[in-house]
């Protein structure tokens, strides 16, 4: 990651994601999108999948977007973005367009881990110069909190409810970064809205690489109603996700893996906050037993194990 912004004051004052959208109070995704657009600037075309961000920001006759914006459907943001990127390329080549615009696809976890995975994979494989941003609120929030492939193990959702037999989501969260990296793209990174400078620098870095091929940023973006916590806690909870090692910050850059602060110290488990700090603040985990928590901890340790192997190989 190149450093474009050192402090919050370096970020442009311009706002491209306007106020007055219909998101819930404390909406993590909308905070993330605001930072992303600030970092990206005005010369972009946004292609957004159906989901919370789309339905809350484009309520006709209003729009929150002061950059060109296209929404097509839930599962095809990557495909529509492929088309937009190809169009820009050929129109420039034929002298019909002089804009340097870059294409950014934005989709939720449902539109990425599940229904949009095929289109995403196709776009990455074909090498379109598109930045794909996954804002991960870990469930289908737009339709009212249903589990997705991005929902964590044991989390309550309306389709992974807590009952007498089953206690929340039965399966683990899909490792989307590994899937994406498997496409051998130039750049992929995780980011967290609680670390806006890190996020903004990753966006800039990613956009700079688009001439070579696709880039992917996986942003953790908590959701107050879906995760069941008071709305003023979004940033705090997001930060705890990284501080506890649940959501590490790292980059895949041309075949190399690099961990970013504070996650770069977290291979040492003692540097991480206990996972309970993260879990206990969220109603979606309120039913967890000691045993469940132990299992989650074990899974996180396993994941760090896997990450340290990646670092050994690709660091």
């Amino acid at each position, binding site marked *: 990651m190149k450093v474009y912004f050192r402090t919050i004051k370096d970020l442009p004052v311009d706002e491209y994601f306007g106020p007055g959208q219909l998101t819930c109070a404390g909406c993590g995704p909308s905070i993330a999108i605001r930072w992303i657009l600030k970092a990206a600037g005005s010369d972009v075309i946004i292609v957004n999948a159906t989901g919370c961000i789309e339905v809350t920001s484009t309520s006709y006759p209003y729009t929150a977007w002061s950059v060109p914006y296209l*929404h097509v459907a839930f599962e095809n943001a990557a495909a529509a973005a492929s088309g937009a990127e190809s169009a820009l390329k050929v129109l420039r080549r034929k002298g019909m367009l002089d804009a340097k615009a870059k294409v950014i696809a934005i989709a939720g976890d449902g539109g990425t881990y599940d229904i949009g995975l095929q289109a995403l994979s*196709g776009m990455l494989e074909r090498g379109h110069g598109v930045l794909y941003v996954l804002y991960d609120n870990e469930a289908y929030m737009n339709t009212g909190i249903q589990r997705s492939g991005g929902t964590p193990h044991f989390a309550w959702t309306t389709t992974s409810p807590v009952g007498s037999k089953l206690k929340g989501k039965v399966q683990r969260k899909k490792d989307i970064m590994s899937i994406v990296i498997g496409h051998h793209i130039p750049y992929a990174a995780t980011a967290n809205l609680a670390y806006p400078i890190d996020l903004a620098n990753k966006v800039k870095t990613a956009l700079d690489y688009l001439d070579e091929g696709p880039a992917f940023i996986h942003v953790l973006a908590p959701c107050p109603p879906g995760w069941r916590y008071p709305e003023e806690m979004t940033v705090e909870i997001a930060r705890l996700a990284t501080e506890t090692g649940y959501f590490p910050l790292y980059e895949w850059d041309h075949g190399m893996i690099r961990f970013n602060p504070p996650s770069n110290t977290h291979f040492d488990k003692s540097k991480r906050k206990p996972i309970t700090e993260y879990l206990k603040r969220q109603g979606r985990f309120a039913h967890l037993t000691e045993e469940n928590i132990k299992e989650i901890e074990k899974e996180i340790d396993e994941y760090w194990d896997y990450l340290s192997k990646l670092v050994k190989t690709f660091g």
Partner: protein
Amino acid sequence: MAVAKALSTREEVVKERVGLTSNYAAAYAVKTVDVDVIAAYPITPQTTIIEKLAEFVANGEIDAEYIPVESEHSALSAVVGAAATGARVFTATSAQGLEFMHEVLYIASGLRLPIVMAAPGRALSAPISIHGDYQDIMSARDSGWVIMIASSAQEVYDSIIMAYRIAEDNRVLLPVMVSYDGFLMSHTTEPVELYHEEYVRKFTPRNLNRPRLDPRKPMTIGVIASPDWYYEIKYQAINALKESKNVIKETHNEFNKAFGTNYDIVEKYMLDDADYVLITYGGASSGNAKEAARRARERGLRAGVLRLRLFRPFPTDEVVSAIKYSKVVAVVDRALSPGNTYEGPVFNDVVSALYNKGINKPVISVVHGISQRTMLSDDFYNLYKKLDEYAKTGEYPRKTIFIGLRGGEA
């Protein structure tokens, strides 16, 4: 005089006469109109179109971005994205592919995007059939697209050229589908006259002056509309489709002038004094019907054929005025509308057109050629004879006649 002039125009515009399948004719049309973005996914009987286009792009014969997508859903989505960004686009599909695009068909017309698609018709699964009929096209008919159905490779070539001009007209701004018989046309070689590129390009000027994604003039496309707005926005799109008929006719006229052709949105064959009319669409069905009409005429039956060239918007006035004075009409469908009173989909369109003009006349629903079940001109000849019998007895069938069905009632 007019004929002489038309002929000389044609001599001037025609570059060469070659043997092409309808699929290749489609690919050549796309090549001639300076397309920007092509996205497609293979499916029989469409595949040879996109293979040919891939070849053109690989050889540098077309300056376009070819997006070899991973599915039909993405094919249409990609051309939606490209068209929204201002590019001239093309895609093609059939059958299951068209079904897989279904969601995006409505989005393309709802977003008012000038997309052109070739769609050789094919039977729908299950059971799997790769063979030709028009069931897939019928499933797409309410999606708000302009739909043309061609009956020769030349017409496929010409229609795709016209389609770009229609789609990109600011009074229309709608996607256009050009359909034709799967296999019977998509894979049959016919002589086609190809035009000099400069004439085609002159006929299809670009319209960059339409709403599109441009950072210098940001615009939000693909919004969510509350119940307070959706209805009106949708109405505008369906109204544009209805009104597009005038632009389509105008385009036909200008095309005829520019290229010395003789297209109309319906084709009338021996209709002026016809008692018995078969209404059909597509190549094999209308070709056989015409042949049968000729034979029926030799034997004293006043037979005629009305072929639908434009299917959506439905040419209500033209259909009704063409059959107004006939005694009996049969609509020969190569598609199914299961569970309806009559199973022929276009039959229902024709009846509603007649009702619209206050005309009550015997119309027979006929289904034929499903999954390319052989259609003989004999079948159509016998149909004319039947229409004559019905007229004489005054007894008309009250259900769809399934021709060529083994073990069926008809």
